[in-house]
């Protein structure tokens, strides 16, 4: 049974890597911009829908991937405008876009909730076919390297710095002449573009675009981000490595899912399991702080020197 499990591992690894790309998008909003963006539940499916519909209609797969990315960017733009120009709190702005995207995604897929795409008929770049899984993993790895390299460069530029400053300290950003509204919008655009692109990969991997493929995506993305941080934050200090940690988190998440399914967890209970995992991992740093805070207080009352 163990051997059998090992043999089945490449599939969750590939799937985890695709979700890892998605998690990189979540990292940009959740960590860099300090915004919890729920648009991703919709934009992931938008990416899948755009890619499948374009590919089925004979468009080159790479152009279809680019189109998926751009569609995600537009979704991010809308959330950004709702947040900054309509003054709607970020979470609610994301929920509004996500809800609207449900209809948009159905429109893209011509009213069908599920649009299949066959790896035999179309020249897809990734697939869950066990015979080509090595190639799939290599392709996803290359995409990950490109995405991380581009983001690493971008967040080291003047413009990238201004987005990081906006996420770190709004008052400071404004005092230094940064238009914080436009930087928030830009961050949401980039994030959702990446998420939609991973949706395009996911649709190819699973052989279809489904209207529900993004349901709970934010939770899986957060799970990947947080698992990566909890396990690797001590050794991964550099920004590029922090992004890589998201991918590692995604892979670990999917291996764990494969294990619990193997152990007999009903697939219907998977979402509940995911939510519980994320809740616990979100709670960990909080509990740690609380405990450490108490410890510090005692240290102080015992004559410890407070941090100057």
């Amino acid at each position, binding site marked *: 049974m163990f051997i059998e499990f090992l043999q089945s591992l490449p599939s969750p690894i590939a799937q985890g890597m695709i979700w890892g790309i998605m998690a990189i998008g979540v990292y940009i909003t959740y960590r860099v911009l300090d915004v919890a963006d729920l648009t991703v539940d919709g934009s992931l499916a938008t990416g899948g829908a755009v890619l499948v519909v374009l590919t089925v209609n004979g468009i080159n797969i790479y152009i279809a991937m680019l189109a998926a990315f751009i569609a995600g960017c537009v979704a991010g733009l809308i959330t950004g405008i709702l947040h900054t120009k309509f003054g709607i709190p970020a979470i609610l702005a994301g929920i509004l876009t996500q809800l609207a995207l449900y209809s948009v995604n159905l429109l893209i897929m011509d009213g069908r909730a599920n649009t299949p795409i066959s790896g035999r008929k179309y020249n897809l770049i990734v697939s869950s076919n066990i015979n080509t899984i090595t190639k799939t993993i290599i392709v996803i790895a290359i995409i990950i390297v490109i995405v991380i390299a581009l983001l690493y460069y971008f967040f080291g*530029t*003047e413009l990238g710095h201004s987005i*990081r400053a906006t996420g770190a300290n709004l008052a400071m950003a*404004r*005092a230094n002449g*940064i*238009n914080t509204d436009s930087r928030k919008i830009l961050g949401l655009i980039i994030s959702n573009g990446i998420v939609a692109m991973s949706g395009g990969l996911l649709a190819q991997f699973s052989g279809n675009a489904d209207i529900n493929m993004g349901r709970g995506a934010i939770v899986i993305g957060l799970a990947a981000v947080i698992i990566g941080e909890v396990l690797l934050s001590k050794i991964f200090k550099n920004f590029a490595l922090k992004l890589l940690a998201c991918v590692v988190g995604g892979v670990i998440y999917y291996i764990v899912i494969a294990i619990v399914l193997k152990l007999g967890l009903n697939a219907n209970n998977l979402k509940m399991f995911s939510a519980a995992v994320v809740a616990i991992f979100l709670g960990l740093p909080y509990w740690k702080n609380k405990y450490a805070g108490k410890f510090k207080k005692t240290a102080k009352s015992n004559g410890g020197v407070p941090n100057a």
Partner: protein
Amino acid sequence: MLEIIDIYKTFNPGTINEKRALNGVNLTLADGDFVTVIGGNGAGKSTLLNMITGAYSVDSGSIIIDGINITNMPEHKRAKYFGRVFQDPMTGTAATMEIVENLALAARRGKRRTLKFGVTSKEKEKYKEMLKVLDLGLEDRLTSKVGLLSGGQRQAVTLLMATLQNPKLLLLDEHTAALDPKTSAKVLEISDRIIKNENLTAMMVTHNMNDAITYGNRLIMMNEGRIILDISGEEKKQLTVETLLHKFEEVSGSEFANDKALLSN
């Protein structure tokens, strides 16, 4: 260079929390003026600074800097005219970014931010020299995250950021109030040195009457949203805390309502 004409501001108008913060403030600063601003709690000192920087909008009146009317200009656009240091050491810097990255951000205030690298190696050298002058040992910690610094160190870095580009006006909003006395004195001394060396025009809000008297060439006192005293030149040099308190009582008809200021004499 700065003209403030008849500024009014009321917070929460029409509610039980209505607060008249500024009640017709008029102020003209000349180039090179270093004005200290004192007044009791709620006198309108910080509100005045926040009006100038655009953090709050004005109800009526206008603000003109070097002939440019900035009354309705968004905060991030008028930021190029000002250097700012805040009361809370956390406010002026981005904790999750490196010291050099913070300085580089400030160096690009008012300029278009492009896809060029955010910090050049030439800049790093320059910042290293500037940090060395502070004498806080920060020159060896260029790539440390600002969040690791103490409050005083953060205020010193913010001060550098605020003055990197020779702002038209430097605004110091009780920037030493949150620091311990020794660090506070050091940051004040650095502020004064930079203002003198760069010949900056500056406004410094302070709770400390001695500091208000010691520093700058001009002193204004605010009460209930108005400027009630404006002392400069020889007269300011002769000031003592006692005469200042006496003058306050004379003009306002009440006692100076600020324990903190009295205690810190």
